[in-house]
């Protein structure tokens, strides 16, 4: 019997090829979007799951306000290195504790030189103390975890890196020369081990793990700090809550002692709600809770929502079409009922049919995934694969689950409707389904269109915002500006200045692509204000091409500029004084107090994404009150022949720093990077909306076909009574257009709220425009009218004699 049912299912699929194709294709599209999302979620969830022993590994997090952009307390991964000893000595469950260099985020890698080969940049080189492999259970292919890092100046490579550098993993005893910055004399490290690449991603990822000795040191003076990440392996901790409580107590005691040594007041530091804090979190929670950043779950939430929506839309289509089509199968149901078939057998039969269709869509979807995955990977900067996925087994289980859910969702309602047909009515030929089904189907059509129209509106507004951003005045000239990734060295800068075409060579800690904010509290006319300080060289502001609003820029001719002058940006000036030039403020450093004089105000210039407002900033050249520096060497060229000049710069670099490759970026590219994330999001929305709109139209098309078919007799009668073709088309269009109109009314407020929320994420944004709403309405109405008319025209052109004779 199953075989027969399967045969019937296949035959009725073939008989209604178009609808079957729409059904299956639509479902496949919905499934593809959903499974891609699932792949991504699986990837993110697989972080730090490569060994069962990792469940005993914990990250130590300290609560403090250093490095935080808002100057508030945060649980940070970057801790005082003394915390390692604190945990090791005071927590009996701690089997091992290790210190690893913090991921500062602005070093892309180190230069590695093997014998006399050209230096290569290697990313993911981390420094750690000797206990690293006691905490992290890496599998050693060469060497062993016990002794690998015993000696300082040793390094353990991942198999992939070993193969890349040497072409083999048998590299024990070989030496690498590592240069961490451009004029680093270099450290020779001996390879003492090679570990296998774990199958899943790691939050403490590395390509090479070094023990240079840096991480072993603990600063002697209580006032000096070395910051690093700390991980510990604990002996079967059941309750981290209790452990964290004792950690907090130990930490508080320690802080009190330490602050006394540093001649600071505990109550001074921890006031206004600030409290000390130290805790451990399981390694598996680390990737989910990055400090200062949105976690992947939060970032992905809209995408998850959208892909679920798409799946729902395609299931709705499926349900809609299946119920509409069920009329054709009504006779079969009636006959079977009088032949003696149970209702549940009928339900089972129709469920098997929808299972068959979802199975086909699933296969189609796997093919689709193979096709789109490379693009997807490129787009989201991940390495996902379907068949080579380490979690293929989990994936398959999820797919089977998804398959059952889709089959039940899509198949249950139609089979229930079908199996409920009353045989007497059906066999007499009058089986117009009741009003109930119509309401539901119309409801589903409206729902689909609400989603699609919301997308169309969103695209319109997002497009406007994107244009606004890419055309926005940045406040600095990004053309012909190059940023070399290195710190400022006067003699090297002097050499570069001699190259014709180079106008300025300068450094700043604040430029788009690499902005480093140093918070500082200033006192202006007795008021305390929080400012962001940026250290620049003399030529930095002119080389950026900023605009002066009041006063002047720094210049060599003013002796005072190396002593105590500062320039404010507009945001800072707005906080201080409308006319600040010539006035002065002071900062306090311990017992001392420094006075600065304001000599100019510049227009705000953007140095981060448009989601962040430009901070009130003080620019200074002077060393007074401390300086900061980051790897920015700005080159302002006064010719568009960038390539030629950069070749000359490159050769100067090679002479000065033969062991370290030069890295640089044109500011135009940096700006493109800033827009990239946003563009990526918009591309995705565009993609999803195309899918959603086409799914809705497919659904509408199929549904209108059935309605046209169902109303054949009515159309014929009307034609006989003298209705024109156009009147007939209008008649059929009217009910659908009403639905689309209702969908428009519903989606306006929804789109408004969602897009407003998105726009609110930008500090610099457009006002909510009206016309995308109107365009979405017009487009949706026109396109649906066209879609329905294809079928309506057919119905209108039909010969009424056939329809009327049919009885």
């Amino acid at each position, binding site marked *: *019997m199953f075989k027969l049912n399967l045969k019937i299912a296949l035959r009725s699929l073939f008989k209604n090829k178009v609808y079957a194709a729409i059904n299956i294709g639509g479902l496949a599209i919905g499934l593809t979007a959903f499974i891609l999302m699932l792949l991504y979620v699986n990837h993110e969830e697989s972080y730090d799951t490569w060994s069962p022993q990792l469940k005993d590994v914990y990250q130590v997090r300290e609560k403090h306000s250093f490095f935080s952009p808002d100057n508030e307390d945060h649980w940070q991964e970057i801790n005082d290195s003394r915390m390692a000893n604190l945990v090791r000595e005071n927590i009996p469950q701690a089997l091992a504790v290790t210190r690893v260099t913090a991921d500062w985020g602005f070093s892309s890698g180190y230069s590695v030189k093997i014998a006399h080969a050209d230096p290569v940049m290697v990313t993911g080189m981390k420094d750690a103390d000797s206990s690293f492999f006691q905490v992290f259970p890496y599998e050693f292919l060469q060497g062993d975890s016990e002794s690998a890092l015993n000696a300082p100046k040793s390094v353990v490579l991942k198999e992939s890196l070993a193969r890349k550098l040497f072409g083999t993993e048998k590299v024990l005893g070989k030496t690498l020369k590592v240069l961490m910055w451009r004029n680093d004399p270099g450290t020779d490290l001996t390879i003492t081990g090679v570990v296998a690449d774990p199958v899943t991603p790691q939050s403490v990822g590395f390509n090479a793990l070094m023990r240079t000795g840096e991480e072993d040191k603990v600063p002697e003076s209580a006032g000096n700090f070395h910051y690093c990440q700390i991980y510990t392996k604990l002996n079967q901790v059941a309750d981290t809550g209790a452990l964290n409580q004792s950690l907090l107590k130990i930490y508080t005691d320690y802080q009190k002692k330490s602050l006394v040594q540093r001649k600071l007041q505990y109550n001074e530091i921890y006031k206004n709600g600030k409290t000390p804090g130290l805790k451990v979190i399981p390694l598996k929670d680390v990737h989910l809770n990055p400090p200062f950043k949105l976690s992947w779950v939060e970032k992905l939430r809209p995408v998850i929502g959208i892909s679920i929506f798409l799946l729902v839309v395609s299931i709705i289509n499926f349900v809609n079409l299946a119920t509409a089509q069920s009329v054709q199968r009504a006779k079969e149901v009636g006959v079977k009922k009088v032949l003696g078939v149970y209702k549940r057998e009928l339900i089972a039969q129709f469920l098997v049919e929808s299972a068959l269709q979802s199975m086909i869509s699933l296969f189609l979807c796997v093919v689709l995934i193979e096709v789109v995955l490379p693009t997807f990977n490129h787009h989201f900067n991940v390495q996902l694969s379907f068949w080579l996925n380490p979690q293929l087994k989990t994936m398959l289980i999820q797919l089977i689950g998804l398959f059952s859910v889709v089959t039940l969702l899509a198949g249950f309602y139609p089979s229930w409707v079908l199996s409920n047909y009353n045989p007497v009515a059906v066999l007499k030929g009058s089986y117009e389904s009741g009003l109930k089904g119509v309401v539901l189907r119309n409801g589903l059509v409206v729902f689909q269109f609400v989603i699609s129209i919301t997308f169309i509106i969103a695209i319109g507004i997002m497009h406007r915002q994107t244009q606004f951003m890419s055309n926005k005045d940045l406040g600095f000239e990004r053309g012909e500006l190059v940023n070399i990734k290195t710190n400022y060295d006067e003699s090297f800068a002097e050499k570069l200045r001699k190259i014709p075409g180079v106008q300025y060579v300068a450094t700043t800690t604040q430029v788009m692509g690499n902005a480093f904010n140093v918070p500082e509290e200033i006192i202006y006319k007795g008021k305390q204000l929080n400012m962001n300080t940026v250290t620049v060289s003399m030529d930095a502001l002119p080389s950026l091409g900023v605009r002066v609003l009041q006063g002047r820029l720094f210049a060599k001719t003013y002796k005072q500029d190396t002593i105590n002058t500062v320039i404010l940006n507009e945001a800072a000036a707005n906080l201080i004084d409308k006319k600040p030039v010539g006035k002065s403020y002071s900062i306090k450093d311990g017992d001392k107090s420094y006075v600065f004089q304001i000599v100019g105000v510049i227009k705000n210039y953007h140095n981060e994404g448009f989601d962040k407002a430009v901070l009130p900033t003080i620019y200074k050249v002077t060393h007074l009150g401390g300086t900061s520096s980051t790897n920015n060497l700005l080159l302002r060229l006064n010719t568009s022949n960038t390539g030629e000049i950069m070749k000359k710069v490159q050769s100067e670099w090679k002479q000065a720093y033969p062991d370290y490759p030069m890295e640089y970026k044109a500011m135009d590219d940096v700006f493109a990077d800033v827009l990239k994330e946003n563009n990526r999001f918009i591309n995705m929305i565009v993609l999803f909306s195309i899918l959603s709109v086409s799914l809705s139209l497919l659904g509408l098309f199929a549904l209108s076909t059935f309605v046209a078919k169902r109303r054949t007799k009515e159309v014929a009668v009307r034609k006989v009574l003298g209705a024109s073709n156009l009147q007939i088309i209008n008649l059929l269009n009217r009910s659908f257009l009403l639905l689309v109109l209702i969908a428009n009314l519903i989606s306006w407020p929804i789109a408004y709220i969602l897009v407003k929320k998105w726009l609110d994420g930008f500090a610099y944004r457009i006002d909510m425009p009206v016309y995308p709403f109107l365009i979405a309405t017009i487009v949706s109405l026109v396109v649906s009218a066209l879609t329905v008319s294809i079928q309506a025209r057919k119905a209108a052109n039909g010969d009424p004699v056939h329809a009327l004779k049919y009885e």
Partner: protein
Amino acid sequence: MIQLNNIEKYYANKGIKNYVLRLVTTTIKQGEFVSIMGPSGAGKSTLLNIIGMLEEPTYGSYEFLGEDVTSLNERKRIELYRNHIGFVFQAYHLIDEMTVYENIEAPLLYKKVGSSERASRIADLLDRFNIVAKKDLFPNQLSGGQQQLVGIARALAAQPSIILADEPTGNLQSAQAEEIMTLFKKLNQEDGITIIQVTHSEKNAQYGNRILHIADGVVKEDVAVG
């Protein structure tokens, strides 16, 4: 075999009862060939539907094979369909997605008849109705008369004790109609299958051995034929 007592069927519409059947009482014995006749809207089909348990009477009692079946649960009813009742329809109602062979096989599958038994019964029916050559065709490839032959073959496949036929020749040309009616008569006389048919045609009614004349829901006449 069938005992109807005071069967009534009405639809209440705004408090007014529209009677379709009134106080129908009759007995149909095993082996009879009964024709129900009457003008349009007399309640013939409703009576047949009630006998076939497709509809429930509003009032009255109905015994089938000595068992009260006035209101029956789905399970019992389906058992009766599988084992005792075969339906033949005016519009044939073959399943379009199934071949002739599969259409005839369907009731046997539901009755869970073994495959070799199934094959021999179908072969027998195909042979008897002279449609062996058509067995792999789909219903829309057959003429009306051929479709109705398949419909009857399907009704007979499960070896029912009674066949209920609602205007079985209503859509057929007279030559084909004659063929079908002769077949019914043969089935009734040779195999002893009870047949109840609804018909408009006096000629068709003559093939049976009893006619129930119905008008306005009431049995007006009950006459024996032949």
